[in-house]
């Protein structure tokens, strides 16, 4: 397995407070890697660090290039899309404008138009709401819009920060099914931060656990499912 993303000794701070103390993991091409961990462990910060949204030190290699210290917009243009904590929807723009913005960095106009239709095929509800202000969408619809907007970048790597947050179990199941299909069809890798560990390990091939800014366990999803500590702390049996 060739690594698409390699992270070593990644540290990050908010002001004077250091939150990540040397994160280390790698993620293969076409892989879905789950990141588990308690509230406040540093999962969101890890994703932010990958996108240059917090002050970071350490090594981040993406598709062979060093991206630590680069500007967020340049990292996005390299092909890393981010569904951020809180969804990051452009609330006052329409659903379709949100999708078009997702593809802002792309030059292939015709493929963009095709991809808008592809998103509508994955999420027909978005098509019904295409001319509606995104702020008026339901929570589930907004999460689907956030995922679609990120995919419109045609990324090599998709970062997902708790996509199941606030969604009904049935909607989560639908969303994860579509993520699996997209991964299988277009081979986009995913780094999936999730509170819902059982479902995340179901979808992912690899996983790691972050505790207070460090990776404490890493392995295949199957290995983590069998791990006693993981089972007790995150799977609840």
């Amino acid at each position: 397995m060739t690594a698409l993303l390699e992270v070593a000794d990644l540290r990050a701070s908010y002001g004077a407070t250091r939150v990540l103390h040397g994160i280390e993991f790698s993620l293969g091409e076409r892989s879905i890697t789950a990141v588990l961990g308690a509230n406040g462990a540093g999962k969101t910060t890890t994703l932010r660090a990958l996108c240059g949204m917090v002050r970071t030190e350490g090594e981040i290699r993406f598709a062979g290039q060093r991206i630590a210290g680069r500007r967020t917009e340049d990292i996005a243009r390299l092909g890393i899309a981010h569904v951020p904590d809180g969804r990051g929807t452009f609330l006052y723009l329409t659903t379709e404008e949100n999708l078009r913005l997702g593809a802002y960095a792309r030059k292939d106009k015709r493929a963009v138009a095709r991809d808008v239709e592809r998103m509508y095929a994955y999420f027909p509800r978005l098509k019904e709401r295409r001319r509606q202000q995104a702020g008026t969408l339901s929570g589930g619809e907004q999460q689907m819009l956030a995922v679609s907007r990120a995919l419109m970048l045609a990324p090599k790597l998709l970062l997902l920060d708790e996509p199941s947050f606030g969604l009904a179990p049935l909607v989560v199941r639908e969303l994860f099914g579509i993520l699996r299909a997209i991964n299988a069809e277009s081979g986009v890798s995913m780094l999936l931060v999730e509170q819902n560990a059982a479902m995340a390990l179901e979808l992912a091939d690899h996983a790691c656990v972050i505790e207070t800014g460090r990776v404490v366990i890493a392995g295949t999803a199957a290995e983590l499912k069998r791990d006693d500590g993981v089972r007790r702390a995150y799977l609840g049996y």
Partner: protein
Amino acid sequence: MEAVLLQVLAGLATGGIYASLALALVMIYQATHLVNFAQGEMAMFATYIAWSLVNAGVGYWPAFLLTVLIAFVLGVLIERVVIRPVENAPVLAVVVVFIGLLVILNSVAGWIFTYTIKSFPSPFPPALGIRYMSPHQVGALLVTLIVLALLYLFFRFTPLGLAMRAAAQNPVSSRLVGIRVGWMLALGWGLAAAVGAVAGMMVAPIVYLDPNMMSGILLYAFAAALLGGIDSPGGAVVGGLVVGVLENLLGAFVIGNELKLVVALVLIVGVLLVRPSGFFGSVQVSRV
């Protein structure tokens, strides 16, 4: 009845100019959440550039276009050089920078061009006049409407316009989709300066050209922007037209021309008291 119609039409002509300047204020407000007090002086300075070009023998319309272009570039430069460094500074610091910009532009204009009042040409042929409006009033209204229509089309239908709207309302998400937010803000300043330049050139034949020509106009524009909702471009345009018409009607029939500026102040205070978010603006819980 005819006298009323006359005042309404005259009000629309000046109201269009308030509307453009109000729109410039709104564009900056949406990106910075602050009112650019120097917007009027930027327009005044651009009008002097137009005046210099025309005096140097450049034809009116080439001078007009060149001025709009120069104003755009100056607007971008002002953002990059003066506003950028105080991007994350406290509100008061930015307000001081705006006021400093106002004073500097005013004095530099006075220093270069002197404070003597100059006349500024109107490009519109007499044939443009109609029964109730002078050629300049008709022309200014037309030019304003064209500018507003172009801006609408730009923001509504081009990817760059969409990106500028996105960058103003959600910079973090904008960066995540690859938008260079800093440049979008600079472009916003450029566009606002360009729109202001048009307003200046359209109003100068009426109020004459001097370094303080925009102070009253800016007050009306501010009233217009507040009336429409300081974060609503469409509201600013409607607000500008309403303020223009009100100003003329009240000036002609109620309070007389000497007290017209009071209309603007009363409107500003009234709107702030009764409906702080204006009539088209989004109600917002305090930010800053």
